[in-house]
């Protein structure tokens, strides 16, 4: 690896799930493993990786790899290994690279997880969501709390020493008590990392339609905030560092791949619907697996959406992403990166944010205060610039 190479993150999208949950709006399709489209998509992603490499490998070293979805573990270990080998063969993967896979608690055991480790994965993220069976059911998940716990233990036994659990709050029929139970059960497992998400009603999902029809009894805003505060306090007490709006980690276990996004740094996304951000251009690949595969096999342009923002708008975007990090954002580094003094450019917004105790400025570090964090979007909106 030559010294002057830039770093990037590599994201690989597996667009399949056994079951489509009612709240999910990710680019994923239910299929069975035998379906020809699955193997075709895997082949297409391999070709996509190979086709993309010549533009990447001479200039970039890969510092993190993330298999997301969908459900990456929907694929066989052979398929995952094939994908991983393709990456290793055509890309300059840093030897200390963080290599994550998302997984669901169903259809996994320690054999499966050992195979993942053999394939090269060193971090696992399990979509647990809740450790209460009734909540899991109303969330339209197909696994039980026990299966989630078993999945975690199998992963540990297999040798994964960097595991994240996803948990959700503001769920239908969820009470503060049920929420606290889920958190404590998760803490007993001692994962290295926890992602704590408030349920978002995404347009076009079954949950959104149910909500509009008045058929989704969600906790109100006050209860939601209590749940969030409870998670923050409890996880802190157990030694987890709250480092992003929805993410907590033990020391040294922050997700390196996701930090690339929040720092507005570069990444390559392969697979159906994956987004890439290189040289200021952000673009998305064809979403539908069959169309994606077809285009890859015929060497056609995969782009379906793209944008290249002006320097000012990129700076605004960098701030709205960076403010999600509790460490805040360095105005000095922004100044170096964009050659504009943000302190001067945003003086009114920053001043009024500080006056309202929503922002704090410590030296050159600008961050959200605790009350600012709750309304991060309202604040960061003011940093956006239109051309």
């Amino acid at each position, binding site marked *: 690896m030559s010294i002057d190479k830039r770093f990037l993150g590599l994201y690989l999208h597996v667009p399949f799930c056994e079951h489509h949950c009612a709240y999910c709006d990710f680019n994923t399709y239910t299929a069975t493993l035998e379906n020809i489209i699955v193997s075709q998509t895997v082949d297409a992603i391999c070709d996509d990786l190979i086709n993309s490499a010549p533009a990447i490998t001479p200039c970039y070293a890969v510092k993190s790899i993330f298999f997301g979805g969908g459900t990456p573990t929907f694929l066989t270990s052979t398929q995952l290994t094939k994908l991983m080998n393709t990456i290793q063969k055509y890309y300059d993967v840093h030897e200390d690279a963080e290599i994550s896979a998302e997984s669901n608690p169903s259809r996994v055991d320690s054999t499966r997880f050992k195979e993942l480790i053999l394939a090269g994965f060193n971090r696992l993220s399990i979509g647990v969501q809740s450790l209460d069976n009734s909540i899991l059911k109303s969330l339209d998940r197909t696994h039980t709390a026990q299966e989630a716990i078993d999945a975690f233990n199998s992963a540990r036994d297999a040798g994964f020493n960097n595991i994240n659990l996803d948990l959700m709050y503001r769920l239908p029929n969820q009470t503060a008590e049920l929420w606290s139970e889920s958190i404590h059960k998760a803490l007993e497992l001692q994962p290295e990392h926890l992602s704590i998400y408030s349920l978002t009603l995404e347009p076009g999902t079954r949950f959104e339609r149910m909500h509009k029809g008045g058929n989704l009894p969600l906790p109100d*805003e006050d209860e939601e905030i209590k749940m969030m505060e409870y998670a923050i306090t409890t996880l802190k007490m157990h030694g987890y560092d709250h480092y992003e*709006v929805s993410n907590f980690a033990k020391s040294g276990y922050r997700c390196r791949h996701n930090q690339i996004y929040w720092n507005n740094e570069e990444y390559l*996304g392969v697979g159906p619907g994956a*987004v890439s*951000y290189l040289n200021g251009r*952000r673009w998305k690949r064809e979403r539908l697996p069959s169309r994606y595969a077809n285009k890859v096999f015929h060497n056609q342009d995969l782009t379906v959406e793209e944008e290249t923002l002006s320097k000012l708008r990129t700076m605004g975007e960098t701030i709205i992403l960076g403010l999600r990090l509790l460490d805040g954002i360095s105005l000095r580094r922004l100044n170096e990166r964009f050659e504009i003094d943000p302190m001067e450019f945003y003086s009114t917004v920053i001043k009024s944010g500080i006056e309202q105790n929503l922002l704090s400025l410590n030296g050159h570090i600008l961050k959200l205060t605790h009350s600012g964090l*709750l309304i991060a979007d*309202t604040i*960061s*909106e003011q940093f956006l610039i239109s051309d």
Partner: protein
Amino acid sequence: MNQDHIRNFCIIAHVDHGKSTLADRLLEATHSVDSRNTQAQRLDTMDLERERGITIKMTAVRLLYTAKNGQNYQFNLIDTPGHVDFTYEVSRSLAACEGALLVVDAAQGVEAQTLANVNLAYQNDLTLVPVINKIDLPSSDPDRVKEEIENVLALDASDAILASAKAGIGIEEILEAVVHRIPPPSGDPTKPLRALIFDSKFDTYMGVVCYIRVVDGSIKPGQRMRFMSNGKEFDVIEVGTFGPDRRVGEAILTGEVGYVAASIKTIGDALVGDTITLADNPSNEPLTTYREAKPMVFCGLYPVDGNDYPELREALLKLQLNDAALSFEPETSAALGFGYRCGFLGLLHMDVVQERLEREFGLVLIATSPSVVYHVYRTDGTLEKVDNPSQLPSPTAIDHIEEPYVDATVLMPDTYVGTIMELCRDRRGDFVSMEYPATDRVMLRYAMPMGEILMDFFDQLKSRTRGYASFDYEVSGYKESKLVKIDFLMNGDPVDALSFITHRDKAYDRGRQIAEKLKEVMTRQQYEIRIQAAIGGKVIAAETVKAFRKNVIAKCYGGDITRKRKLLEKQKEGKKRMKQVGSVEISQEAFLSVLKIGG
């Protein structure tokens, strides 16, 4: 052409009863347009008219028809605006005709608007030819409709023509009826010129173009013409007709319809209803007493972006070129800044103008709630006309207030009588009469304050009768009422643009209803918003909009960034459409909510 072979007529119909389609068929049948090239509904020239299915500005077309008797006839078809707001214009275009085709939908029957227009036709001594349209529809019931025409309109319907403009049925019969049933014009070619202006339009190249009906004498280019109402004189540059395309002619003769262009710069000089005569041989008898179209409904229009204020003025001036009934004056609101107080003939006119300002001129506007003109008698005996609630003098300076009343007519299936009477009563209507013009049909008449009609009366009427009621009104005069002004405060700051005037007995209910409505439509903000309704200094209702406490997207990874940024950009854009009043941001929806108080 021989005066005996001229027929001047118009078509009277309720919205959607097929007037424009029939006009198209008549144009095609007389080969005035090629049916293959015809754009649907030729006579409605503005996009907005076609979209809304209403005719706002009328047009006159000349058709040449060879009748079954072998003789050639000149038909002048004058299109009339089909809406209550434009009653005065309708009556002027009726005055230019000798007859009218009365089009009634074979399934829907007579509607309130038809009744109002037929009454205008009677006042102008027009011969009416009833046409029952859409007889090809399965739900059509021509016999019932005939009965209704006789009962409601007191018109012999035994020889009504059964037609379907859409299917081309009965068109020839209609053309023959125009020849044989509508009388020719009766003017005198030897008398001094008298021509009625029934419409005028501003054209960038020709200036104001007057649509006229020559009653006596004739007019041709080179003559000096005079408007009888204001004495202003102009040289006639061009005369002609529309067929439907513009055709320059040599003269417009007695009994004929056409246009005159005379380099007239402002539409205010060539007003609908005025009589044109010649300067060197004038008549001294105007055809009708000219009446200025007076705005009845007022509202404030404010640019959301204060920098657009000059553009708003330019746009209003441009619209006024073609719309003498539109009035506007600068006004300032403590809440909304600089804007214009605009006067309209009615609610539809107001809607149309607002929509054109936004659509054609790209302006983003906030409209305050519409108001009628109140006659405020001060304790010192003077009369003040108030069209803006925030300008109402203090109660101690007021002796009494009068408000405009209308005679309202509602026609509906009898099953809805109860709910409509309840609505009219609730809107302070005084019952006048109830008639049964046909089986299952009821006609109600009420005397009602016009201000009550401005508050979603149409919407209520339609929703309570599932769209089966039709409604029309005519302004009848002023009556004393116990009126008070309700003010609204947001976090203690009065929002003058939300103030409205209502009856004392209704004030508490309405203040409370609107405060509730405001609570619903106000966007939650970072701070709590206190909404108060007050009469004088006394708070009569209060609501609180809680501050939002959490606004942060949960997941923001590589694939979410563009979407999240766009979402925030959209939110930011949305805020630009809001008006900052004190510490509170108010959306257009909030201003409109004052109108939507429900039943």
